């Protein structure tokens, strides 16, 4: 085998290794970015407010309407930190 052929083979091999390792690095970085993005998931959708009876919306005693208008999270029946781990 000539030295020239050996050099070419060596160069080709190195080039191939470089391409493969770059691909892996890019894929690794992309998957890391995807994992980080998964870490920024918004909190849970609030649960549905309860059913209302026939006379439920007569007067001011309608619990779901009051929850919908409440300014405090607990009164509004919003998810607690424990509900969304």
């Amino acid at each position: 085998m000539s030295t020239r052929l050996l050099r070419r083979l060596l160069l080709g091999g190195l080039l191939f290794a470089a391409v493969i390792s770059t691909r892996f690095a890019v894929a690794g970085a992309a998957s890391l970015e995807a994992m980080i993005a998964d870490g920024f998931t918004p909190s849970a959708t609030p649960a549905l407010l309860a059913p209302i009876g026939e006379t439920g919306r007569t007067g001011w005693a309608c619990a779901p309407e009051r929850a919908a208008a409440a300014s405090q999270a607990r009164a509004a029946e919003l998810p607690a930190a424990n509900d969304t781990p």
Partner: protein
Amino acid sequence: MMRAAVVGLVVGLAAMPFGFVSAQTYPSARPVPRTTDAPALRALAQRREIHERFTIGVDAEAHKRWSAAIPEFERIIALQPPEPLGSTARYDLAIAYANLHRYDQADAALRAALVLDPGFLAAMANLIAVDLQRGDLRGARGVADRFVQLAPDSARALYSRGLVALSSGDAVTARDDFGKLLHDDPSYAVAHYDLGLAEEKLANFDTAVSEFDAALRLAPSYARARLALGAVFLHQGKRVEARAAFAQVVANSNGDPSLRTLALALRDSIDAHR
């Protein structure tokens, strides 16, 4: 003498139920409708049917018998009751549909309720939740804008619109809404977390860190907030702090295996790039 004693005993026994025994109580009688007019009788029968079906339907929903509740509310709607009964029946029907994951029908019922009563806040709240389940961010945003306009102090309105805004990439609106919610209720850890997410999206990493910290001060076992804190540290190049945060989530993921797996992968990726 003997005769008088017997008469006295009989009278006394007869009086006992009224004097000493508590009688069963009945609601006061409603006046009997005195009419022979056919349309009036029909209206009375219809009112009675609506009353009965509401009672049965709401009871079915209270016991999570969603399929049983549906025909009751559908029939009420078919009877075209006056407001607020019409919108209430549609609202209740939507709850049954949503719990059966029939979100398109739930959406339609809630939108019909809002046509009848445009100020029905509970229907708006549930419609946003249903639209988020359907993945209809545009529909949810339209209702959320109206909800915030009608009830600007409502925690649910601000939280719901903030969530929709975060999911659709409108970090500015999300930041404003969660900020307003926290102005009224600063002890709500979840809103600090979501505000942290909005700040992160706006590349305000230091503010995001302080919001996640605030969430964790209020709820120390809030694993999702700790994971997000670690992710921001990673963005800032603070690998040691990030690794510590991920390791803490691995140790206490609050019972969420997917969160633990994610924290584990992030921690290991830091270790692999040392």
